[in-house]
């Protein structure tokens, strides 16, 4: 079954990451990369996203399309990356995510089965 993992940075996590020195931060990213490598046989896609201030949101439900600076949700928790995985079931997805060394919140959402 295919799922998307949405990696979510909490405010605390973002602050902690910011406060780290370059060596410590590099170590943190290294751990995340290691996790991706360990699970490479089950990860079929995904990417880290750039910072939320690089986001642009378009709203199409206000008459004319409206363009806004920033992510669609005004919040302290931001999506910082995603991964597409292919595993047997939710149990396996959860087991994988439990070992994730990065941000403290991860959403697991199944993909709609492909319509042929």
């Amino acid at each position, binding site marked *: *079954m295919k*799922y998307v993992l949405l990696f979510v940075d909490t405010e605390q996590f973002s602050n902690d990451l910011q406060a780290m020195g370059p060596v410590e931060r590099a170590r943190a990213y290294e751990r995340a990369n290691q996790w991706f490598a360990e699970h490479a046989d089950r990860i079929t896609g995904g990417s880290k996203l750039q910072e939320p201030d690089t986001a642009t949101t378009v709203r199409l439900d206000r008459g004319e399309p409206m363009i806004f600076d920033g992510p669609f949700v005004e919040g302290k928790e931001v999506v910082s990356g995603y991964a597409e995985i292919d595993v*047997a*079931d*939710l*149990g*396996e*997805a*959860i*087991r994988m995510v439990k070992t994730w060394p990065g941000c403290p919140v991860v959403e*697991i959402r*199944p993909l709609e089965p492909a319509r042929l």
Partner: protein
Amino acid sequence: MTEASHAELARVVREYAGRLAASLVELIGDFSMAEDLVQDAVVAALQRWPVDGIPDRPDAWLFTVARRRGLDVLRRESNYRRKLAQVQWPVEHQQDDRLRLVFTCCHPALPRAAQIALTLRVVCGLTTEQIARAFLVPASTVAQRITRAKRKITDAGIPYRMPTGDELGARLSDVLAVIYLLFNEGYLATADQAQSHDLVEDAEWLARLLYGLMPKEPEVAGLLALIRLHRARVTARFDADGGLVLLRDQDRSRWDRAAIEDATALLVRAASRHRPGPYQLQAAIVACHAEAERWEDTDWEQIVVLYDMLLHLAPSPVTRLHRTIALRYTAGPEKAMAELDELAGQLDRYHLFHATRAELMRELGRPDEARAADQRALELTANPAEQAVLRERLSWR
């Protein structure tokens, strides 16, 4: 139908519905479909058995109905339909697969309310209406919860599997939490809910089932002992008019002493595994009360020690509140009041906090504050039995 035969009917359904569900999931490979078939069979049983009597082989009867429906519903070319058509009842090498059923129904990816409804339905064979009546919610709410849960099991790929290794501990906690919630819900029900399903009985049955399948897990034994210790004293909890009788006023000659001894022995055996946990500790506290011949003989010191251990494992303001109630008897009302005051911020919306405050105020000779606290407690509880007790207190003087 007499009340006794209603109870017998419920017992038989509960005994066989879960087994059938587990077998059908194996045969059909589809949790949701299997559940529907069993539910149809249960509804049919509840209609026919009161009229025709309970059959000699209730399991075979239920299976026949479920199979007939399954053959109607499953597509002609389906593998599962072929299997279902060929299978003989009883299924060979049928081990008790209800454990997988329980763990699946209590999967953390499902909302707690759905875990409870699904467990009652799938493992205990209750109908949606019975569940709704037991929890005092509309049947449509229960139906929706169950439908959504079953859909999520399919759509999100929740596995039909026993958790293993280091997952087992956490998952077992989820199952025990559901059973405990059932027990608690049943415990809070007042005497005039006698018509509704006895959730405490279902909780005990589930705990007993789990204990039979996982005899080496001390927390399972702990929860079973806890439930049994409560059931052993249930007749003394309500008076002839259905009013709540407080522990200190209960007629202890009405307690089932043999059941208390058995439950205590179970607890002692569990304790010998040296893996303490919140359910064992709660059971130990109840056992202290249950073993006392009279209120005056209660070993309050031991109870306070047990609460300290419980708080160490599972800190919570409500547990601290219960500890202060015991502290009153070991250290006096002033000390207890001081402890209680520390909880004011967290428990201001909890009626028991104010009721306890009122008791202590009375002991300390501050009747006006006692009245105010009882009044506050009354505003905060919707439970008719507890309201009656509080109104009674407010009518003093």
